[in-house]
Structures are given as C-alpha cells and as structure tokens.
C-alpha cells in the first residue's frame, strides 16, 4: 500500500500528541485559568478562607518550636532559632505541596482528562503553580518577622530565594509527574508519596543544624545528604532569612556547589518525570 498523504503532510496533526511540558507556553491561557481555578476553589466554603494558609504553617511552627526548640533544647545552640526553623519549614512545605498536588493532579481532574484532550502536563503544572502561590503568604510572614529582627536585603538573597524556589518546585514537579502518572493506574503511588514526605522534614536540616549530621555521618554520606535538592533549598532559605540576622551562623562550606548539584538533580528529575509521564499518558483516559 502506498503511504497515505496525510501521514507526511505537515498540515496534519495527530490527536493526543503534545510537546509535553513545553506545550505550557502554547496553552498558557488555559494554564492560568486552571491555576486560578485551583486557587479560587482551594478554600471554597471555609469561613476563614486563605487565613488557613497562614494558620497552618504557624501552628506547625509552634509545634516544632515548643517540642524541638524548647523541650529538646535545640534553640540554645542556634541564635534566632524560630527564624531558622521557619525558613526551613517553608521550603519543606513548598516541596510537600508541589509534590503532593502534582501527584494527585491528573486523578483529581478525571472528568476533564476523560472527556477533552488537553496536554495532560497542564494539570500537574497548574497544581505546581498553585503551590507556589500558596507559598507566598508563608514567605511574607517570615519576611515580616525577619525585618523586625533587623533583616536587610542584598542581591545575593534575592538570587538565593529564587534559586531555592526553582530547585524545590522543579524537583517536586519532576517527582510529581512520575508519581502522578503512576497514580492513575495504581493509587498506591499516592501513599508512597505520603511516605516519602514523612521523611522529607527530617532528611534536611530544618529542625536541627547540618553540623549535627556532619559530626556523626561519614563524609561520603554527608555529601549525599547535602546534595539532596531539598536540603540545598533549605540551606538557601537559611541564607536568605536567617543568615543576615544571626551573628555567628553555622554555614555549610561549598553551599553553592551543593546548590548546583541540587539543581542538576532537580533537572534530571523533571526529565525523568516527563518521560515516565509521557510513557503512561496514553492510557490515562481509559485507566481513570
């Protein structure tokens, strides 16, 4: 049989083919509306609404501060421990939020995925965007507190904050794409993510100082520990908020090297995530 002209004609499109994450640009309007939808409906029907975005992290912060800081006495070794704690927590929260919501994105948009074709990557992307929007109030609270304590801004801090947000979001999105795609066929993925997130807070120097690990772990393990993209983002966040007000901060050596490694790993995760997503995408509509 001779080949059909439609196969080679560039004017013809294959339904259901997209350019993956790159199609976000072409579909930016839909993406922005999906994101808006997520933001608008997040606290729908709750009286306090967006206040919950402040209440939750503050409660979480108080819990850690009382138990770890005061009862276990960690704060004696760290100047301005509340700021140290909170600047780490907001990064962990951002990562959890991105990872968790992107994992659930496809499943929770079931109705759309099954009926209308859109590049499916838009759903995790919109979720990640929503998570970043959700992060802003927390960062604002921290910033206000830090300013009261004599915080000043430098260009380095702006770069560090952006780098931290980029690393965490990209890493979370990459992982979320892979787990989100698996989640369609096997809802176990969702629970695995919960399990991973349980460890995240403790696998980075959030409620303790990195020197605690450095003093006990063998050197190679410490390097692995520091190369965790979330750890590098947490340390960057310390640099942004805590470093300028503390007199004698413990700062890890070669922080920016670890940041670069973390960024590299985050980029690898998003490529792998996209590949896994692509691979499974064809079956989404029928598996949901």
């Amino acid at each position, binding site marked *: 049989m001779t080949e059909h002209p439609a196969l080679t004609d560039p004017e013809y499109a294959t339904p*259901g083919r997209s350019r993956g994450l790159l199609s976000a640009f072409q579909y930016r309007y839909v993406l922005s*509306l999906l994101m808006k939808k997520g933001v608008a409906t997040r606290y729908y029907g709750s009286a306090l609404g967006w206040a919950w975005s402040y209440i939750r992290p503050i409660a979480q912060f108080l819990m850690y501060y009382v138990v770890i800081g005061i009862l276990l006495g960690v704060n004696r070794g760290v100047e301005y421990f509340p700021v140290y704690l909170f600047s780490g927590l907001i990064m962990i929260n951002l990562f959890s939020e991105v990872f968790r919501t992107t994992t659930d994105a496809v499943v929770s948009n079931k109705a759309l995925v099954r009926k209308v074709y859109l590049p499916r990557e838009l759903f995790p992307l919109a979720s990640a965007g929503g998570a970043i929007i959700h992060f802003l109030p927390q960062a604002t609270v921290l910033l206000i507190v830090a300013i009261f304590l004599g915080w000043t801004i430098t260009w380095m801090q702006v770069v560090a904050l952006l780098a931290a947000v980029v690393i965490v979001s990209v890493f979370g999105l990459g992982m979320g794409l892979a787990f989100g795609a698996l989640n369609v066929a096997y809802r176990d993925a969702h629970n695995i993510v919960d399990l991973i997130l349980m460890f995240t807070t403790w696998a980075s120097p959030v409620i303790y100082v990195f020197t605690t690990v450095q003093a006990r772990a063998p050197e190679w393990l410490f390097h692995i520990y520091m190369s965790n993209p979330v750890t590098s983002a947490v340390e960057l966040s310390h640099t942004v908020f805590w470093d300028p007000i503390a007199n004698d901060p413990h700062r890890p050596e070669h922080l920016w090297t670890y940041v670069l490694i973390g960024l590299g790993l985050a980029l690898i995760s998003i490529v792998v995530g996209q590949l896994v997503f692509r691979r499974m995408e064809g079956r989404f509509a029928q598996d949901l």
Partner: protein
Amino acid sequence: MTLEKPVIVAHEIVKTFKLKHNHTFKETFLSLFRKKVPGVGEFRAVDGVSFEVSPGESVALLGKNGSGKSTTLKVISGVLQPDSGWVRTHGRVGGLLEVGAGFHPDLTGRDNVFLNAAILGMSKKETEALFADIVDFAGISEEFLDTEVKRYSSGMKSRLGFAVAIHTHVDVLLVDEVLSVGDAEFRAKCNERLLQMREQNKSMFIVSHNIGTIKKLCDRGIVLQKGRVIFDGPIEEAATYVTPPKRRKKRVQNFTEFSVAPQFHRLFANPERKLGQPVENAVEITENGGGLSQRFTRSLATYSVSHDKISFISSGKFLQSYLENGGPSGPWGFPLGRAQGSFVDGGTRSIQFQHGVASSTAASEVLFTPHERPSEQELSHAGALKTAEAPSSAVSGKTPANRDQNSPHPMKDRR
C-alpha cells in the same frame, strides 16, 4: 487546494480495553512475568475502523450501545490513543464530548464559561467577544451568572455547557450524544445552530441515537457493529440499520411439530405473554360451554366459546391446581381473566373462573371458592353455559364427581 484535503483521516484504528485491571500487588507482580496471551481478558471496542471526512461534510456515527462509537470519537479527539492504526486531523478539531465536563461546581457561571471555553481551545479575546452570545444562547439570567454552578439546575448546567461548546471556533465539531440537552425549545435552538454551522461549511462528526435529528443534520452515516464498519454511505440508508427495534418487535416463533390453534396465535406470538412452545395440539373441550385448550411449556391457553374469552394461565400453583381439578372441562370451568393481585406483603392473588374464584397467598395453597348456586337469571343469561348442576349438561358423565367438589365450602385442592 487546502480545502480539498480531508479534515479527518482515520486508518485502521484498533482500540482494545483490558477487561480486568491488576489492582493487587500479586496480580501486578505476576503479570510482569506472565506471557501475554493476546485476546484474553481484552475487549476490542474498535476493530479496524477507517474513514475520511471531507471539509464541510457532516457525518453521523451510528450503531448500538457498545458498538464502539464513543471510543472512535475519543480516538479522533485525542483523548484515547489507538492501539494500532492512526488518525490525522486537519484544522481545529473541537470536542463536544460531554457537556460541561470542565465545569467546576464551586466556580461561578461566568468563570466556568471562560474556563470551559479555554479548555475547548478559545483565547481570552475570543471568549470575551462571544461571551454575551453564549450567555444569551444558554438563556442564563444575569443574577445566575455570578452564582456557583453547583446551584444551577441540571438543565441550566447543560445548556451553558452546550452554549460554550457550540460557540467555539472549530473546523470540525465532534458531538457525542449531547443533542438531547435541555427542553424542546432549547433543543430546537441547538439544532438550528448546528444547521447554521453546517451552512458555514464546517464539518461535523456526530454520535447520537436520535435518528430524527441526525437525518436533518448529516448527509452521511457510518454504521458500526462490534467495532467494525458495516455500512458507510447516505444517511437514509444508514438509518435503516439502526431503526429502533420497537417497530419490528420480535414475534415468538413456533419451533415444534404441534400447531397453535388460530385462536391463540396472537397470544402465542406476543413475547411478553411468555406462553412457551406448544406441547400438544389444541384440545377441544365440550364441557362448560365448549371451547379449546392447549398446553404450552410455560402455560395453558384456553378459549371459551360461551364467553368468547381467550385466556391463559402461566405455570405455577394456580395452573397445577387447575389441572388437578380437571382443567377447563372440570368443575372450575374456563378462566375468565388474568390473575389479579400480588403476593407482595401477604396479598392475595386470584383468578376468576366460570364457576368460582381461585385464590392464594404467597404461603397458602390455592383455594377454590365456587360461586353460589347460579341464579336462574344468570343461567338464562349464560345460555349455553352448562354447570355441573345442570342434569342435561353434556358433562353429565362427570357429574357425580363434580357435584361433590362443588360443595359451598372452599375446598382444599391438594391433599
């Protein structure tokens, strides 16, 4: 020349669904090693479907439920990927796959219009330009526009969804079973709008069971059966493949060597009566005014000449008692009606016979209560009716037995 190119080319599309999903770890793990046997536990929804749709052509996809219509449409829209074969589209293909699929119940009507329009591929500017038209078409009042969609009635929701979808700028419109949205007035408006789109030389690809609408909108029909194309051509001819079965209701056929008495033909052929197949030829009854009776596998049919009444009793305890008591030639006489009442909640079911009433509850056995000795008037009215009491009756040979069973007390029919 661009216009001459087909807008949809589908080539040998095959889509298979797994009937069973590996949900447990064990199954998942084992399926990794097990050799795949093709065709086992799988269902071919679409099996090698090919067609081309030219610009401006409107095509209807017809077929029974489960013939693969919606799957085909989903493959064209890109929601599903074919397992083999390919689809190519030319121009903007818009899906009207499900009205309001993108509606979020917690968002207002206004927000949802923008969101849904964007999902269907419209830009912000296009939506803004068409917004008034969309709202007007859907007939949603201003106050509802800023109300959450979850407070809408289902009709409003679908009207709004349809209005958005039908206003999107597409070259090919895919419509799946949504033409039955809203009230008659709205449907008329939709059909009018679809006809308009047709005049604008837009291609349409419609899945519907509403033959009337389809005949108006489409000029070509593709009929699917079990995932294969069995007809592709003019809509009139295609429609004959899917004429509702109501019009040619299946009549019960006689598969036996016995013949059904002409009196019972209609009763027998009606599938709802469930007489079953004849197990004998009709038997002429001379007693009780004369008539016919014929046994079927699942019932007994009777015809009483004196009452000119055709009746039947389905297999069950009534029929059993009736036959044990001599059937139509016995003291009960011919049945004069269908069973009345229901066993539900301890109710009583009864059947009127010539000479009495047989009744029963779910638990009890059948009791026959003979009528009081028929009055002279009744007797004269009944004319040829011969009761067991009538000494001159043709059944006199059986009279002694009948008389004794005709006692005024309800008798226990079985011992």
